[in-house]
């Protein structure tokens, strides 16, 4: 190896500096605010005061868990069927899955709310059919539905990608060795697409547990999740500290779940990567 020039030695310097200033330092400030009171003295009171939000945490985790599982149950077969199409159809389907992701999440969620609201299109249709109104906005069901609707593409895409990368010869081999269709799916396809599932699960779970826009609109301001609470706490200077504590706890929760999830898969190399937003 040739001598490394000064240029190559300092090439990473701006990046490292930036990362320290704007990634590490903000995290330290979260820690600082979480463990100090309004006057800047060390205290645990912010963390302990989070106990009143116990149910908020439980509900957020539950919603994120349910939304993720529903996305997986819907998304996995979808990705499987998509991957079985001809390459040209696959491309079109791929564009169709990605298209909603490009339309702003806020507008999409708002449109969904307008559609499902008591006086919205769906309910006026149901009323005309004589079924009567089904309240969706402002219920648990509505919020979970919003999460599934908004984040389903994040589940489908990585699984679909894993499926298309799958070597077709494995499948042929399994048939040759006497497996039936179902066995091929459970023994060959599922284990080999596990990495896609893991990143899909991460990409749905993380934004679901931290969302505030979806619960604000589809929960009508009545169903408060962790994200809503953090957002509200940061609207008021006097509650920054509690807000920081809450963010910290949520961060730790997510790190733990990512860690557990990675344990689940044998493939340690699949770093969970979120490509999306919120």
């Amino acid at each position, binding site marked *: 190896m040739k001598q490394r020039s000064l240029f190559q030695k300092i090439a990473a310097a701006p990046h490292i500096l930036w*990362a320290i200033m*704007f990634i590490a330092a903000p995290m330290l400030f979260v820690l600082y605010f979480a463990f100090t009171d309004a006057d800047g003295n060390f205290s645990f009171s912010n963390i302990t005061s989070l106990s009143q939000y116990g149910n908020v945490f439980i509900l957020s985790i539950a919603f994120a868990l349910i939304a993720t599982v529903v996305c997986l149950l819907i998304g996995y077969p979808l990705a499987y069927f998509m991957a079985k199409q001809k390459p040209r159809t696959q491309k079109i389907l791929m564009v169709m899955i990605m298209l909603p992701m490009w339309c*702003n999440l806020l507008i999409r969620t708002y*449109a969904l709310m307008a559609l499902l609201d008591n006086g919205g299109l769906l309910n006026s249709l149901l009323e005309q059919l004589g079924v009567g109104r089904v309240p969706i906005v402002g219920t648990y069901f509505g919020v979970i539905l919003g999460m599934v609707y908004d984040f389903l593409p994040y589940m489908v895409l990585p699984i679909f990608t894993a499926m298309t990368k799958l070597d077709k010869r494995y499948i042929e081999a399994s048939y040759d060795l006497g497996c039936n269709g179902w066995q091929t799916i459970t023994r060959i396809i599922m284990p080999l697409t596990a990495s896609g599932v893991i990143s899909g699960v991460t990409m749905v779970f993380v934004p679901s547990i931290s969302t505030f826009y979806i619960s604000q609109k589809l929960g009508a301001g009545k169903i408060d999740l962790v994200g809503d609470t953090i957002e509200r706490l940061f609207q008021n200077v006097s509650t920054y500290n509690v807000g920081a504590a809450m963010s910290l706890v949520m961060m730790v929760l997510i790190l733990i779940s990512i860690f557990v999830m990675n344990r689940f898969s044998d493939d340690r190399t699949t770093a969970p990567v979120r490509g999306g937003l919120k």
Partner: protein
Amino acid sequence: MKILSKCYMGVIFFLLYIPIIVLIVFSFNDAGSLSEFTKPSLVWYEELFRDEEALSSLVNSLIIAVSSSLIATVIGTFGALGLHRMKSRYIKGSVNALTNIPMMNPDIVTGVSMMLLFVAVGTFLKTRQLFGFGTMLIAHVTFNLPYVILSVMPRFKQLDKSLSEAAQDLGCTPSKAFFKAELPEIIPGIVSGLMLGFTMSLDDFVISHFVSSPNFQTLPLYVYNQTAHDVKFSMYALCAMIVFIITVILLVVNFAGSFGSRKSRAIRR
């Protein structure tokens, strides 16, 4: 089985698209109501182009997206180069872990942490006008960085070491060797990092929400304020137009170029 799978796909795609279709159809609704369609018209599209606030926030969004993705690409490319050449595994590992934080963290935590930093710096400097374009640019560069590294790093790893050595044997200085022999090889990675950062930044709402000031609004922030009131139908018109443009771009990119789509590529990694 074939029919069943087609039906399944049809149903899911139908459900996924209903809100968007309704939104597009009603953006042509003269009455400006979501409950009844009176007659088709383009009034909301005209209204949109007269709405200065919406247009200026669109321009702001583009400015932020272009500048933040460019800055992040430059810093990130050199960062990836330096990290790739770095000897100490310990530093390398920890810098990588640090860089990935904004990608692993929920956006709300990233946003909140940046806000706390700016608040603290503001109190320290005693300035009253810290939030605005600058803070937003910093935040956007920060969350774009990991995606740039993610796209560029694999290119460096694939790079043939002898390339640089050959260039140096032929009389190049190490930096010249980098620019002449290696940079062209990693350009696809740089481009995809740039595009990825651009779209992420254009789309971001949550982080911007925490580091913005009402004086400098991007499009998602404008939409958020809108949805807190009575949404103007010109917003639906805007969304319909975005969907249309993106469809065209995606189709062109997917069928004309070999680039593949950027967003899915990031997910694939």
